[in-house]
């Protein structure tokens, strides 16, 4: 295929993403195995965690829009924004998502919705004011890639395990605190099992959290890549990233903390992280890593 000749696939990124997913699945199996072994009320936990995640997944568009104060805009209200999205969707042959604007000055954009049919792409007033047209287009191409990659579904499923493990940790902890760890002598074995469940699920919780964050960072890189290829100009996306993250650093912290919960959907996270340890816990790759990838892509397009 001519396309792959022009822009080679990034096998490294695919491999890392696959590996992360594989570890998550293995963890799932391990946790469920342990739970079945000790006979915990697995069904109960799964139903509750599943229910909560389902709500999050099904109403992801409404939750995120509500959280950010975004409102869906018509083509008459925002003709320029719609014109850009129209063209990108025709270019990528995808269904046009709803377009929303959040009336906040923080420069950011996000995409949400459980599937491409129910997707919403939202830009804040702040990002529309700060970026020029090509840069805004690049950001929207990145968000449309999230929609095409079904990232809401992927991340919801990926975080399911972490949620289950977290709930079990809390349940057994409370049960242990209030019921006492084996106050009956003849039940000391039961106490040991409870303790083991606590330890295992706490470890699973921690590891799955790290894996989910890693997966999220890979999805960001994948969206950067697809978005840059769609508009054909990686450097424009890079300049938008620099502008937005540079601007973010100058905004008072309190506003940013208030928005931290919605980081997973964002174009760039509201809190920047400098140290290498915090990069393990972040939903987005460090700016330098994203810029490096885009620079590499730009070089590939020039070379062929």
């Amino acid at each position, binding site marked *: 295929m*001519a396309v792959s000749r022009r822009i080679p696939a990034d096998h490294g990124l*695919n491999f890392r993403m696959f590996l992360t997913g594989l570890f998550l699945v293995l963890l799932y199996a391990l946790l469920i195995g342990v739970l079945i072994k000790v006979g915990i009320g697995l069904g109960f936990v799964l139903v509750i965690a599943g229910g909560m995640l389902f709500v999050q997944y099904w109403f992801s568009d409404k939750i995120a829009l509500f959280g950010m104060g975004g409102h869906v805009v018509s083509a008459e209200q925002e003709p320029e924004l719609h014109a850009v999205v129209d063209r990108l969707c025709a270019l*990528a042959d995808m269904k046009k998502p709803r377009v929303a604007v959040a009336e906040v000055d923080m420069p950011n954009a996000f995409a949400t919705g459980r599937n491409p049919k129910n997707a919403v792409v939202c830009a804040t007033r702040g990002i529309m004011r700060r970026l020029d047209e090509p840069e805004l287009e690049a950001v929207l191409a990145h968000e449309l890639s999230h929609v095409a*990659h079904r990232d809401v579904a992927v991340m919801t499923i990926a975080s399911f395990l972490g949620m289950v493990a977290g709930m079990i940790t809390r349940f057994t902890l409370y049960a242990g605190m209030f019921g006492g760890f084996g106050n009956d002598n003849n039940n000391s074995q039961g106490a040991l099992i409870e303790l083991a469940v606590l330890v295992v699920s706490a470890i699973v919780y921690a590891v799955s959290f790290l894996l989910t964050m890693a997966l999220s960072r890979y999805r960001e890189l994948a969206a950067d890549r697809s978005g840059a*290829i769609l508009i054909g100009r990686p450097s424009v996306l890079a300049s938008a990233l620099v502008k937005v993250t540079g601007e973010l650093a100058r905004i008072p912290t309190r506003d940013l903390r208030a928005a931290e919960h919605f980081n997973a959907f964002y174009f760039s996270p509201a809190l920047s992280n400098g140290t290498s340890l915090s990069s393990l816990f972040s939903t987005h790759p460090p700016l330098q890593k994203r810029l490096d990838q885009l620079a590499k892509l730009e070089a590939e397009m020039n070379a062929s």
Partner: protein
Amino acid sequence: MGLLDALRGKTKPVKANLDALFALPAAAVTLQATAGVVPTGHAGVCFKPPAGQPFAQMQADLEQLLRSDASGTADAPDKAASVRDVSDKYGYRWILVEADDIDDLVTRVHMVHSSLEDAGWSTQLLCSVFGFRPGGTDGNGETDGIESITRTVFLVYLAKQGTFYPFAPLDTEQRDNELELRIRGMIGDDLPIEKDLARWFPLWGLPVE
């Protein structure tokens, strides 16, 4: 795009679907007969130019090719090759071609399409636009039918979908939706019309006459 590709976070750039273009001359005949509009002889191919020297070189070669072709046509050997290249405010570029005959026009647009495709850049194609103007006098002037159209209209060919839609702009960033739907009714049998009306996006200030 397959579900598997989506889950792997890989969007394959979509290649263009260019074959439906050749249905256009038949639709032009229908439009002239039922509404009294004729092709303006102008068309434009709209694409997203990617960064890098390979694409710039390809485009330069292509325009050279078009010019040599236009000067050599049998019906108008003296007519200067008219290939223009303009950028619009959304960062898309247009290659504008002219030909008196709709068949020649389609051939030239197809030449642009297939050159991009052969070079591996059909992923960058957005659409191609053909102009039509009122001009019933060209054919049988007396039968300006009841459905006669009195303003310039455009047929837009969506490269990725392989479908057409009519675009009838008014003066001030308004469009005549009623007329567009009427045109859909007239040529629906000749051309694959884009079914999703959300894809009939407006092309304000398009450089095609």
